[in-house]
């Protein structure tokens, strides 16, 4: 079962279905435009958007006057309303930037100053004592408290954006790479995909770590993406050392290795920050684990290595020290590149800016009257009260069949995640939509069950199922007559 092939033509083609591309697509469908969203991977949000800190930042860090600073602020303001519309949980748990000793206190003063320049409200300097009272597991000489810091599940956000865009007419094609960008006389004609050409008036390059390559296809590349890997380690839900996001003081390059409560009750430690040369290198390393643990434990001593249940890595798409958002020398081709932190937070504002850029390219846009911004919330069974769970089972008895024991995910949830627009078609797609396989047993119990349901719903053999798209088939049985006694 594959996504529909892209149409022969569209007003706007968005390349890259990460959080930025999905925000853009969802923004564009509010206007009288045909929108196609192309994604080379097997699912939306499968690149950097699926492997980050998942923090909505208040906007202290970015250098004032940069696009990052402006769009971080605007994005942070827009986030709560968007999450409400999309039925995505945004937990405003607040954050602390912690000075590990007295020598770092002047940095806090500078950050406070910067927060004023960036118009971030309610930021306060607190003493080491006050920090200990609020976050007893955290050690520091002093801190800045940033109340407008939130966490969410970025996968859920991306799925919700994509579904809402699709629900409003966007065509989303996964496993559909762009092979060429067609340009004539310095003007965009369209793109070439394995399914054929898609003529387009505007192309938005939101291709993340590959955005330099895509810009190169159009002859509109004047930047290089240097992927900077960040490793993360996930702690067991039984361990909850902190209740807000804990940051060390930031460097010029990164926000540092943080301790981050997730919206689902785990804790993340990370990210590290090391440039890599291979854009496909998502491996975690022994050195990365040691670095993440020692930094996190310096901030928060109770954190033990034995609390770790999973690890992942993501690549920051770094193109210099600011976002690259704007038209190029190729008419109709717009770059949205170098979106590293605070990219997630800035994404709603980036999308608004892109709409303005599209209008610059093709003339004033007409707003639709039939755009539905609401994507109905899909409450997680595991988070409901016993009474609500009972009600849900009474409405749909497949909620009574628990498929994932660790995260209490029901068959009805698994089924819903596969059906519907932009549904799951792989094991990871199902995992990220439902959390089946993300608990402490890491799928050991639910895998055989999920395999049966997925194969049944997609009407394929289990041997065709993949972890995350072709090449990652789950099962490669030996040839029938392989054993030679």
């Amino acid at each position: 079962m594959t996504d529909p092939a892209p149409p022969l033509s569209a007003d706007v083609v968005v390349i890259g279905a990460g959080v930025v591309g999905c925000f853009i697509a969802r923004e564009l469908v509010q206007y009288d435009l045909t929108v196609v969203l192309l994604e080379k991977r097997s699912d939306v949000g499968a690149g950097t958007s699926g492997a980050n800190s998942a923090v909505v930042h208040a906007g202290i860090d970015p250098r004032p006057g940069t696009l990052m600073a402006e769009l971080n602020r605007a994005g942070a303001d827009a986030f709560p309303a968007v999450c409400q519309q999309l039925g995505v949980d945004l937990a405003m748990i607040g954050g602390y930037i912690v000075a590990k000793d007295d020598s770092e206190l002047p940095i806090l003063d500078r950050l406070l100053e910067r927060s004023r320049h960036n118009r971030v409200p309610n930021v306060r300097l607190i003493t080491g004592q006050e920090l200990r009272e609020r976050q007893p597991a955290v050690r520091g000489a002093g801190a800045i408290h940033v109340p407008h810091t939130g966490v969410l599940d970025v996968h859920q956000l991306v799925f919700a954006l994509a579904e809402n865009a699709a629900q409003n007419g966007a065509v989303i094609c996964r496993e559909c790479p762009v092979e060429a960008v067609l340009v004539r006389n310095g003007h965009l004609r369209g793109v070439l995909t394995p399914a054929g050409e898609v003529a387009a008036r505007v192309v938005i390059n939101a291709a993340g770590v590959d955005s330099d390559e895509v810009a190169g296809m159009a002859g509109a590349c004047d930047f290089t993406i240097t992927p900077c890997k960040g490793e993360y380690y996930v702690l067991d839900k039984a361990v909850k050392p902190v209740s807000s996001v804990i940051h060390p003081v930031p460097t010029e390059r990164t926000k540092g290795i943080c301790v981050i409560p997730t919206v689902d009750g785990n804790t993340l430690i990370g990210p590290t920050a090391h440039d890599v040369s291979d854009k496909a290198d998502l491996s975690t390393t022994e050195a990365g684990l040691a670095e993440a643990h020692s930094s996190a434990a310096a901030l928060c001593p109770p954190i033990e290595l034995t609390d770790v249940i999973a690890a992942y890595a993501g690549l920051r798409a770094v193109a210099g020290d600011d976002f690259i958002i704007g038209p190029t020398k190729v008419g109709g081709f717009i770059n949205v590149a170098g979106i590293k932190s605070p990219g997630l937070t800035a994404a709603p504002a980036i999308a608004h800016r892109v709409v303005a850029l599209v209008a610059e390219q093709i003339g004033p846009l007409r707003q639709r009257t039939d755009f539905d911004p609401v994507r109905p919330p899909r409450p997680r069974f595991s988070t409901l009260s016993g009474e609500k769970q009972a009600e849900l089972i009474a409405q749909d008895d497949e909620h009574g069949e628990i498929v994932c024991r660790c995260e209490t995910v029901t068959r009805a949830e698994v089924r819903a995640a596969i059906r519907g627009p932009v549904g799951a078609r792989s094991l990871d797609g199902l995992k990220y939509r439902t959390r089946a396989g993300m608990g402490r047993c890491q799928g050991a119990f639910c895998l055989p069950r999920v395999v049966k349901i997925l194969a049944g719903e997609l009407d394929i053999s289990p041997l065709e199922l993949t972890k995350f798209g072709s090449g990652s088939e789950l099962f490669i049985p030996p040839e029938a007559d392989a054993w030679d006694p």
Partner: protein
Amino acid sequence: MRCTTTDLVIIGAGPAGLAAALEARRRGIERTFILERDERLGGILPQCIHLGFGLHYFGEELTGCEYAQRFIGDVEALDVARRLRCMVLEITPGRAIYAASKARGMERIEAGAIVLAMGCRERTRGALRIPGTRPAGIYTAGTAQRLVNIEGIIPGTRFVIIGSGDIGLIMARRLTLSGATVEAVVEMMPYPGGLMRNVVQCLHDFDIPLHLRHTVTRIDGPVRVEGVTIAPLDDAGKPIATQARRLACDTVLVSAGLIPENELSKTAGVQLDPRTGGAIVDDVMQTSVPGIFAAGDVVYPHDLVDAVSTEAEVAGRAAARFIRGEMVAEPQWWPMEAGDGARMVIPQRIRADGDGEVQLAVRPASPMQNAVLTLHGADNRIIAQRRRRAVWPAEVETLTVDKGALRPGERLRVTIAESPHEDRTSL
């Protein structure tokens, strides 16, 4: 929500649950209910198609399936009440159980007594913190066993098995017989994690290399496993990078230990032993919550299912007595400690009510020759002792103590030490 009240609820229909249920029924507890989340009875046994079960309990060598079927047959013959495809979500300290099933929705069951028999889960790659990529082709040995033996899916062609626990050893043989190649079993300790007979019958007999004192330092392959890097460990337990080498493979199985599955026990307020990850139990398998008992791998991972059945019968018997009001509510206990040479001793405390013998289950902390297992009491006096020619962490030893020999209020401790005297009395 449906609400019912019953006498005894058994959570889990594996060997522990089945044996406990049957024993309670035979002792007259008619209203005994088994709740099982899978679609069949038997727990993990139906996927254990290999021999090695029942030598002690039945005096016969059976497959896991055959062993389970003996108990399933009795459950069916006695028509013990049971619900399949029913998952328990919560147990309150007051012994109310919330369970969800497609057939009956969410229901609340008030139980006079409960036996926890939820078994265990496997240690994962993530918990082992093995660096590298996260491709398709990494499974725990138990999941692979279910895939092969029940779903009929062989997940790969060339395997490396991390950890020499029994499930991994059994799967090494199973996969070889199914046409796959097992390149190696990699074990970080200097001795195997599973039973010696499995090492012989599953690895030696099939020329599968066992690399002791080795660890997997990396899994590679961006979309599907392509290889692992293994390295020997130095005396400090650190990998020697200069001697690392890569083994090409397409599938990795993790067989690195079992962890009692006690999420439900926690909801009931049952105290857990940090050494075992399972409930603290007394000699009748009662937990810290009166009326809640535990048996089987949920208490500690057993090496023989025969011991699970016997232990579960103790729990079933005690649950029956509790329901009839025959059990002393807050007895005195003798606390039991695992001392030098012992990784774990079960039970962690012995009741001062009743008399008779208690069989202690002791897991050695390391391999020893000419071992002496000793139960010490107050002032280091020796209460019971047993000699063994050799002991292994993979094989739980037993030590019997007569309650009559214990003094009021003394603290008990089991040690295992190497003795210079030659053993003449043990097997």
